[in-house]
């Protein structure tokens, strides 16, 4: 069996408050494969960073900003949303597997929602990995 792949979370530090959920390795307590990288605003996340993470072997990437409409810096979350949707340059490369990228728009209080969504995402990514490895083995 292949090694379990990691999930990288790129999160705005004003969105879902993950500080209380982190262990000393900057990953979520109870989910050691989910790592967290914090940004001053989700608008700072470059599509390039998502591509780099997937290329380096991450199983998936979670982008988490504040609720759409509420951004401390006015429009950061709308910017990264539009970039992910390809409506604003620079966008994600076409080759990037869209199933491996999830965007969440959560306010500071919604860390429980983040946990449940992340758990779901991790199981989905594991499923995806399995499908891909069986497809590879079959061919």
């Amino acid at each position, binding site marked *: 069996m292949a090694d379990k792949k990691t999930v*990288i979370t790129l999160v705005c530090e004003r969105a879902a408050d993950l500080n209380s959920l982190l262990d000393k390795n900057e990953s979520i307590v109870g989910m050691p494969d989910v790592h967290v*990288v914090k940004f*001053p605003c989700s*608008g700072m996340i*470059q599509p390039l960073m998502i591509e*780099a993470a997937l290329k*380096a072997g991450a199983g998936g990437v979670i982008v988490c900003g504040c*609720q759409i409409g509420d951004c401390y810096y006015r*429009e950061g979350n709308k910017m990264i949303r539009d970039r992910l949707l390809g409506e*604003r340059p620079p966008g994600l490369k076409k080759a990037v597997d869209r199933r491996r990228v999830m965007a969440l728009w959560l306010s500071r209080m919604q860390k429980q929602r983040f946990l449940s969504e992340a758990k779901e995402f991790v199981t989905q990514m594991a499923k995806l990995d399995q499908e891909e490895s069986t497809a590879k083995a079959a061919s």
Partner: protein
Amino acid sequence: MTSSVKNETNNNWLKQVYNQFIEAANKLTLAIEDGINTAITSKYNPFYYHGALPQFYLWVLFLSGLLLFAYYVPTIDNAYLSNRLINAWTSVQYITNSLPFGGVIRGIHRYSGDAMVLFIFLHAIRVWFTDRYRQYRWIQWATGVILLLMVLFIGQTGYYLVWDERSLLLTRMTVSALDALPIIGAPLKAWFLNGDTITNLTLSNFLFIHIGLSFALLFVLWLHYVRMTRPVITPPPAVNFILVAAILLIVFLVPISSGNMANLNTQPNTYDVDWFFLFNYWLMAHMPMSVFWISMTALAVGATILPWFVKTVSPPVTPAEVVINKCTGCSLCYRDCPYQAIEMVPAPAGSRFKLLATVNVPRCSSCGICVGACAFDAIDLPQLPDATVLTQIKSLAEVK
């Protein structure tokens, strides 16, 4: 020595209490907004249009005001021109009682003014609670306070225009308040009355102040928006319909009427207070004039300079930096910057490109949105270079 130490601990204590208060207020705001988002989705959440709401009511006020202006007669007495008395009060009566839907238009004009003040306060409270009024946003806050004062004064002049007993009383109270001011009091009083006493010219002056200052609002609003890229100034249509419907509902539930016509030979002494606009007259009646002026001035000045006194926990602003030899002049960061802090200037001689991005430091919020916009790694936050972030992401992503 001891006193200064004590002062500092006092200050720290105050700071802590203030920070805790803002923290709790921030959480409360977010909780309310989350609740509204679950109910009606974030697209229609009025809290996300808190600045656009008073702006919308301003358009409603302009439109309804234009209709009222067509029939309003700004005099107290034009007996020389007509057998019947036609003045401000009778013209307002005509608008209200005889003109089709005149009463509705008048009601819309009055209640939209109240709604505008209410939403301006909500707007101010939200930016205060979410800590979005300091540092690079000071110009929005300072012009906001000026706008609020202007709106309050415009609303008060609206109350003089009706020319019922309350108008007369308010005019006289204003005159005595201006009279109490040293040096500038007398000229201000002459300006306000357009002469020494209340005459026909007084009413036309009130109308001019009411309308002229309303248009001056547009100029200050320009200053209010000047550093905002894509300011949110229109709520979605669905919200607009609800805003108008709310006003219409109040207009029909509580129709507007005037008091008795003002009579210069009498001295009315009681009136209904509109708490949105006339609270300062209530204060004026309940304290010595000097205390009134000093406290009002202190309040206005204090509110304006508030952003420079509040130092809370928010991170220090370290402006973004352009990497000159990497910038291609594509202007993506310039377009995406939410505070118009990036300017495109001609590239230095010898460059392969025509333009170069530069950061206007006092406007920068160090949010990093420009970093997200840059596909060439040419703009950076000094405290968090994207190269560092990329290495961190790569090392985390590697399968262990």
